[in-house]
């Protein structure tokens, strides 16, 4: 709108005097600028400074078992174990284990978006038993598609470089062959999750209130299947189903080691998964969680499938890692926190051995 020296526009009177139109335009422009400035200031005014620091609200994780819970009767098995002599393919073992639970169709419905959560924490080949086997990732992904899933995502937030870990553990290839999508973590994908409202109460062995979570794969998933490795863990006793959820978190996870048992039980509290499937054909018996020696790996030829995280971890600790679950501190904390089967979310049975007595743990032995 800059007008150069000398030319006079048509709406000006010959002596340059004030016309009504010029008056309205000019005063209107000034008033408009003043009004906009004032409006901007008033709308953005933040007297205490808090508005400028507002962070996006934390998300809360839905209960991924909720829709299945109703179909679980008192006499349905909570845990199914398939033992073989090592010659049966993993896919077949998983299928056999799911049968007493009603097959994958009990858990996955048509159109579901399923998140598979393997343990890909370290840059290790599968034979060292420090990561989830690629066979079970491929098998479960295929079974989900067969049950009608629209999309299968595979995600983890490793300790070491994500792309390297997924590749070395052969999970990149396994997922691709099964048609699943790998979601590699990046800085922008994290948001806060509210594990529990308010401050954690140390007297109840609580450690997590709000924490940074890898939100990208969780955004669209409505079913979550945990695929843990079964490993010795120097600080926490063992890394199994509950510890596996560590891989969903971000932020300063290195602080967890100050209260590892409180945190592991809180991880189990945070996620109520649809299903947990562990390929325990290789079990890391000592020097976990990173392992590194073939000698530390036991060929156990077992697959464990379950819907109760406490029972799952207790059984694996006793029968695969060959230790006494009564000495595993985070299990005791989990039983306290989860409560006796109150609703879908906290299935943890205080006396998980009760399951065995009531026939809720099924063991299938396959020979030949």
């Amino acid at each position, binding site marked *: *709108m*800059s*007008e*150069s*020296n*000398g*030319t*006079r*526009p048509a709406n*000006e009177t010959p002596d*340059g005097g*004030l016309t009504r139109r*010029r*008056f309205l335009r*000019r*005063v209107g*422009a*000034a008033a408009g*600028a*003043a009004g906009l*400035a*004032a409006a*901007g*200031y*008033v709308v*953005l*005014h*933040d*007297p*205490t*400074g808090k*508005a*400028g*620091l507002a*962070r996006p609200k934390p998300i809360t994780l839905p209960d991924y078992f909720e829709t299945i819970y109703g179909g679980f009767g008192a006499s349905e098995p909570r845990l199914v174990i398939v033992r073989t002599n090592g010659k049966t393919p993993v896919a077949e073992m998983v299928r056999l284990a799911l049968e007493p639970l009603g097959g994958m169709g009990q858990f996955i419905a048509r159109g579901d978006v399923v998140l598979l959560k393997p343990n890909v924490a370290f840059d290790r080949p599968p034979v060292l038993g420090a990561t989830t086997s690629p066979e079970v990732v491929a098998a479960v992904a295929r079974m989900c598609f067969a049950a009608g899933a629209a999309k299968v995502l595979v995600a983890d937030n490793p300790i070491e470089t994500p792309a390297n870990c997924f590749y070395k553990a052969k999970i990149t290839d396994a997922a691709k062959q099964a048609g699943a999508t790998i979601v590699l973590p990046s*800085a922008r994908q*994290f948001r*806060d999750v509210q594990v529990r409202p308010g*401050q*954690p109460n*140390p007297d109840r062995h609580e*450690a997590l*209130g*709000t924490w*940074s979570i890898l939100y990208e794969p969780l955004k669209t998933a409505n079913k979550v299947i945990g695929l843990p490795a079964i490993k010795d863990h120097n600080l926490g006793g063992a890394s199994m189903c509950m510890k596996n959820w560590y891989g969903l978190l*971000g*932020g*300063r996870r290195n*602080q*967890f080691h*100050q*209260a590892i048992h409180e*945190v592991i039980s809180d991880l189990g509290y945070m996620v109520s998964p649809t299903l947990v499937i562990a390929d325990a054909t290789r079990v890391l018996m000592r020097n976990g969680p990173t392992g590194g020696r073939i000698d530390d790996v036991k060929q156990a030829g077992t697959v464990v499938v379950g819907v109760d995280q406490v029972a799952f971890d207790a059984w694996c600790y006793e029968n695969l890692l060959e230790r006494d679950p009564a000495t595993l501190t985070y299990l005791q904390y989990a039983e306290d926190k989860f409560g006796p089967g109150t609703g879908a979310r906290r299935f943890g049975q205080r006396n998980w051995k009760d399951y065995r007595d009531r026939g809720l743990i099924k063991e299938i032995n396959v020979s030949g």
Partner: protein
Amino acid sequence: MPQSNTAKKMTTKDTGGFLRVTTARMISQSFFFVAFLGLFAVTTYLCLADNPRLIPWVAKFLEIDPLTAIATALATHAVYSGLIFSLMILLLTIALGRVFCSWICPFGTLHHVVGWAFGRWTTGHRIEVNRYRHSYATKYVILIATLAAAVFGSVQIGLLDPIATIYRSFTIAVMPALQTAAPGRFGDLRIYQLAWLIGAMLLVLVGLNLVIPRLFCRVLCPLGALLGVFARFSLWRIERDTDTCTSCGLCAAHCEGACDPDGSLRKSECLVCFNCIEDCPHDALRFGYLPPRHTEVTNPDLDRRRILVAGLAGLAFIPLARAAGASGKAYSSTVIRPPGAVEEQEFLKRCIKCGQCMRVCPTNVLQPAMLEAGIEGLWTPLMSFRVGFCQLNCVACGQVCPTGAIQRITLQEKLGLGTCAAAGPIRLGTASYDLGRCLPWGKATPCVVCEEVCPVSPKAIYTEWQQFLMRDGRKIVTAATAATVTLAELPKGGQTRSEPTVLRPNALRGDDSQHFYVKVPTAGGADQTYRIAGNGVDTIQIDGEFSQAPEPGDVVALLNEIKVPRIDMSRCIGCGLCENVCVINGDKRGVYVSAEGETRSRGYGDRDRSLRLTRTEE
């Protein structure tokens, strides 16, 4: 004001009032400049703790600076607290043009006075030096570049904003210079690193007035540029009657803004100083209401290309500045921010480097950063515990921060008292011992002055008795009784005889701060340690009796036991008083605070620098 002989001074009769308008302007300039100096007198000669009502006034000029409000609003999407007052200046500019620059701005007044006092030109030279130059568009480039940077999270306007600059220069350079030149007259000496650079910058900027009057205002000032943009709407401006005007050019002789009053007035450059109206010998100029557009240059001297280049330069700054990671993963542990400071990347969206927190801090601990916090953090405040410490019951810095880079916290929030007990205190960092330098730990010398001064309750530093082998502490036994043992030196290589030990009598008796022990071997068992009650030249007497007396030829150890200090991480708030009083006085002390454990970054994912998982105290 010097005038040429042919000029006719406008008399008060002509203006119809009792005061010439330029006189009114000079009074206004003086008023605001004296007010600005007065605010410095307040902090120099008064104790702010005794006069808390004065605290919000200390940084008032910053609050009325619209560039501060707009830049921080672009970065944070909020207008913090008192910054809303800068709307007044914007509205004033929309109505009247850049009156702020020549009637209010204290930095402008400084330039105006220096330019007027040291200009030694003839009228002809003056007219020439006040001609508009295309380089005056530089300030718009600076404005656009810094606002673009602000949009993407880095506020750098403080580097050249006139109010921030004059506040910073006076705080960090001028006052300490006066304090050095006349000790005691201007308050106690405050020291600030980089004072020389900031002082030199002030001298250079002010000195440029000898080249062109108000060079800073015309060429560099981003606030002037911002006001120049808004001045396009002004309803009044200097208007020239082309019929009366003889094109003598005298109006430009004292034109502060170099805005071509003798041609098409550049509205965005005119500082509304009214000198031209005064100087015109033909009364051809007046301050007119809605004069026609065709006799003015309405918009600033910018074309689309320049705007684009400036914007891109500003945008490019962000990734280049952030690439080194200083505000993220590669942060420096020496960047310890004041209590109430927000998380680092939020801080860089707010801090305008005005230096007011440094000014009101009672201990002088706040220093302007060099590159510790990255290039973005230049001149932002960080703590240097060599110089001071964070006084426990003080929250002054947050009270004066105009942009909320340091929030206005209460003492309750700072110390985690009352309703804030669950959240805990604000921690600035955590102290750690350098075990080689610390007197007790590394040099077996009693001290623990750090423990004594630790201000939190219960203290974050506690002491334990620890035993250390003394120098030449291994001795050989020549004789022993039930409660004494006589010693000789260990034979050195090749010697067949031991030399007798020579001790100062009762040197090993010890006192409250130091105990001495002798450790003797026992047959088939662990060593036994006994407190020394006294000693002669070569004989030691223990407290009580040996359960099994040493044999001649046994090797015993003399130990001294002193109190060693330890940090309780759950209590340490990083105030730095321990580091400040440590006997080891230099750059590296026996105990030092580092930024780990600070609470301001809690909850910010990867940028979280906290140490402890649980928040509540055990």
